[in-house]
């Protein structure tokens, strides 16, 4: 009886709105009432990562505003010749669609994870990893193309020298994030496939039992990678 009452209190009767924020953040209790520590820490990590990418985009903005030399036109720089005509930004557009698709499959993997559908979860996660790897492959192609055309961190044939350093720094860091995500996706997919989260098998590194929530935490990271690309696409490629 006491427990029901308390459960009721902790779930339903907590104040909402601004009053709820004050109540949740007040001292001597945990601030995030219905979020596990794993999920909360992933969110806080993502917040710190937001600042990292925010600073990259800020420094890019500063460099681009403060240079007297015209900035190279990304629409032309990233155009591809397909079937005899130049199509602007086409590779970047395809990369965007690939990454969004991978976010969609990841969201569905999380959903099937909570439904305890091991097979579908693992397959969707591996599909997500495959799309992520495709993205990194296309990025490698793009880097190769630009490097052969003479883009360097200290200069390029078309305009402001800072273009190269901004490009390599921002897309390089993002690509690294995608690569790490692909590796972790494969690791978590393997755990799902083997049924680690059903049998409570301890993890090889933490020795703790995983739960299907791990899939969602993995998903948070992956969606964040997609999210960063949304901003890079807008500010670096389209602006």
């Amino acid at each position, binding site marked *: 009886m006491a427990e029901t009452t308390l459960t009721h209190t*902790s779930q339903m009767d907590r104040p909402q709105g601004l009053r709820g924020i004050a109540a949740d953040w007040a001292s001597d209790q945990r601030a995030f009432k219905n979020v596990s520590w794993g999920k909360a820490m992933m969110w806080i990590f993502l917040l710190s990562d937001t600042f990292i990418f925010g600073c990259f985009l800020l420094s890019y903005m500063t460099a681009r505003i403060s240079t007297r*030399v015209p900035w190279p036109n990304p629409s032309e720089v990233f155009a591809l010749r397909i079937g005899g005509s130049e199509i602007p930004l086409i590779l970047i557009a395809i990369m965007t669609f690939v990454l969004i698709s991978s976010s969609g499959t990841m969201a569905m993997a999380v959903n099937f994870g909570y439904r305890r559908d091991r097979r579908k979860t693992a397959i969707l996660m591996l599909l997500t990893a495959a799309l992520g790897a495709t993205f990194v492959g296309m990025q490698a192609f793009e880097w190769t193309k630009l490097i052969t055309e003479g883009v360097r961190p200290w200069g390029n044939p078309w305009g402001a020298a800072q273009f190269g350093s901004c490009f390599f720094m921002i897309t390089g860091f993002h690509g690294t994030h995608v690569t790490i995500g692909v590796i972790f996706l494969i690791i978590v997919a393997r755990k799902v496939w083997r049924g680690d989260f059903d049998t409570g098998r301890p993890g090889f590194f933490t020795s703790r039992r995983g739960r299907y929530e791990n899939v969602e935490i993995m998903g948070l990271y992956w969606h964040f990678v997609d999210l960063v690309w949304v901003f890079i696409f807008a500010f670096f490629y389209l*602006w």
Partner: protein
Amino acid sequence: MAEATANGLGQHALHPAHDAAIVAKAETHQEHPIKLYLVVWAWLFILSTCSYLVDYFGLHGYLRWSLILIFMMLKAGLIVAVFMHMAWERLAMMYAIILPPILVLVFVAMMVFEADYTLLTRIAFFGPGP
């Protein structure tokens, strides 16, 4: 009566442990119909296509910038709210995560002034661009 008192006492003594167990039980996960994700996915495709078309049709000036920013914010909002399930979190969580990045805009404003000043001094000393 005695039992009730003991129970009451026990409840008080156990309160912190009790509370932790209950909070752990209250940790919720999100289950939504697959259709929701498919709809959001479709919208992300549409919005990405729109922002690509802004470049394809060569729009420029304030029209271009405002369209890019609108499509960007809509996409980011959909990803954070639905795919990352932020829409269903408590407000304490939303504010803790979403408020700090918004404060970065102050930094943006500072750097815009700084960069404009740098450009001004460069033009003053080296003349307008080559």
